[in-house]
């Protein structure tokens, strides 16, 4: 074993420039993949996180069928008590109760159809970024307060500002007319156009009064401490909800567009990565073949001395392995350093705010520091180069010592 290892190592350095270039190509591809994949995964994490933090949360408890058809009558009875129960589960950041309705909102000059959310003041702030995104005025003060906050686009459309009164007109739980006149106490800006244009929030208890909901609500919105452990949290949540008319839905179900967006982006980038990997693979194949062909005579001598073709195949594979590991090692160090740098300082490029506005407020991406994201690219390169090394190694089996020694 010792000699075969020594042989392999020295054979690599027989052509230092050629091997150096091969190592550099592998290192470059590995570094690039490490950086791009960690950044890509990091950006997904952030898109998901930011998007879900605006309003959706990591999961929701709803009445069966509410997602498809949000009917006023599809309620959760004693919603706040159930929320209190769910907050005891380990791994949950918070649960907020929400009631939801569609109504007309009128200023002195104009009227718009809007989505009205009744929110629990104490808990909403931990689940939604809207309370922190108030541009003028303040967030809602108390669950029983008679007040309203609206998005900035809506405020522009209605030509109103903080302090103005708005008239809310809808239909209540029992079919009666729900109407109220509420003062605007705050105007928010989430950066997401459809929310800033079409959503208003009022305190939960006020909502329940206006819409005759009593103790009921429509949604329990939850956030887990770690999105990666959502499934274990959800199992516990489901155990606490015996009522079969209620369902627990994760973000993926609540926001299928987000998942599809990520999938589409994933396919795009993997197409690019595959091209990169293929180019590197073929250039390596070429080098390996050359390295083996020019040593035909040497292999002939080794065969003549009684070396088994299998051992020579092993030697070639060992050379491939060493070359690849060297390249991957260097690539991991470089790619890892670059990744760490951007992990500390954040990564951004021009035009990113635009994308941020569409999908949820990112102006800097932090790469994902996970073993999986780090090792995925290098592992794929490893497999491809080893397969490539197999080809010249297998060619050796056909070599006859007499013929081999004729070549110089």
């Amino acid at each position, binding site marked *: 074993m010792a*000699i075969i290892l020594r*042989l392999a190592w020295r054979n690599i350095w027989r052509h230092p420039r050629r091997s150096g270039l091969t190592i550099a190509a592998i290192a470059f591809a590995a570094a690039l993949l490490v950086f791009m994949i960690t950044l890509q995964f990091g950006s997904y994490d952030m898109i998901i996180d930011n998007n879900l933090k605006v309003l959706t949360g990591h999961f929701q408890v709803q009445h069966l069928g509410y997602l498809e058809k949000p009917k006023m009558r599809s309620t959760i009875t004693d919603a706040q008590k159930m929320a209190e129960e769910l907050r005891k589960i380990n791994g949950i950041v918070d649960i907020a109760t929400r009631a939801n309705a569609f109504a007309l909102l009128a200023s002195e000059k104009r009227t718009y159809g809007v989505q009205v959310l009744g929110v629990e003041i104490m808990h909403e702030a931990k689940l939604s970024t809207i309370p922190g995104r108030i541009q003028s005025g303040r967030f809602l003060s108390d669950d029983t307060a008679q007040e309203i906050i609206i998005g900035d686009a809506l405020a522009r459309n209605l030509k109103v500002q903080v302090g103005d009164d708005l008239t809310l007109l809808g239909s209540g739980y029992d079919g009666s007319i729900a109407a109220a006149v509420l003062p605007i106490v705050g105007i928010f800006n989430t950066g997401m156009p459809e929310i800033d244009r079409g959503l208003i929030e009022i305190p939960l208890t006020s909502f329940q009064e206006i819409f005759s909901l009593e103790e009921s609500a429509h949604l329990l919105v939850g956030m887990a401490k770690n999105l990666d452990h959502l499934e274990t949290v959800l199992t516990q949540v489901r155990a606490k909800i015996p009522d079969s008319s209620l369902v627990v839905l994760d973000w993926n179900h609540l926001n299928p567009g987000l998942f599809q967006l990520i999938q589409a982006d994933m396919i795009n980038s993997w197409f690019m990565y595959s091209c990169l990997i293929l180019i590197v693979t073929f250039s390596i194949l070429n080098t390996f073949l050359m390295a083996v062909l020019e040593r035909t005579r*040497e292999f002939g*001598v080794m*065969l*003549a001395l*009684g*070396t088994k073709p299998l051992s020579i195949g092993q030697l070639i594979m060992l050379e491939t392995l060493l070359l690849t590991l060297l390249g991957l090692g260097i690539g991991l160090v470089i790619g890892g350093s670059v990744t760490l740098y951007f992990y500390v300082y954040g990564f951004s490029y021009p035009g990113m705010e635009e994308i941020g506005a569409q999908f949820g407020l990112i102006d800097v991406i932090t790469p994902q520091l996970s073993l999986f994201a780090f090792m995925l690219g290098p592992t794929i390169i490893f497999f491809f180069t080893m397969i490539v090394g197999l080809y010249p190694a297998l060619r050796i089996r056909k070599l006859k010592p*007499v013929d081999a020694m004729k070549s110089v």
Partner: protein
Amino acid sequence: MNMKQFPVICRHLGKSYQQGKITIPALVDINLEIHKGDFVCFSGPSGSGKTTLLNLIGGLDTPSSGEISLDAQRLDKMNKSALANLRLHKIGFVFQAYNLIPVLSAQENVEFVMQLQGLNSARRAIKARAILKEVGLEGLEKRRPGDLSGGQQQRVAVARAIVSAPSLILADEPTANLDSHTAETLMQLLHTMNEEHGITFLFSTHDKLVMDYSKRLIKLRDGRIQSDETQ
């Protein structure tokens, strides 16, 4: 007939090459017995079949017809891996040139075969250094082939061939790439090895000077034995 006395026996040995539709007879009806401890030279014009014969005896190639045996084992009936095993344990080779593995030092080249045979590293090192000293390369053990002269390289090849005490050493034109003085010292070395270790040597040459060292001179012509003289 005592087989042990004759390490190599050829009976009606023939080898022909197919080149397109033409059959080239490289060896025709060779009958030959080599005595143990012999020092045999094959000579003859180019294309007379010297290399072909040495390759057949060395188990590097298989005959088209006839029988060939080494230490009472029929080579013509062996498969590839059996032949490889036989070469490893019973035959030493010295080729014309570029005999050595370029990335290994002189000593490592000598150790290579012993490693294949499964000797442990301590014994390998001792034997390799001893044999390199014997062929006059003491102090050059760490040199790579590229840093040795042609004659020195052939000495390393001889050392490698001898070190595992084979039944037979085959050398196809070992002096072809050497100047006459170096060639002569190499032949003296081979001769000494033959005398002292009793190893059977078969070699081929074009060189009259090299032929003079042989104990038995076999002349080939058109794939046949033309003459066989013990000197």
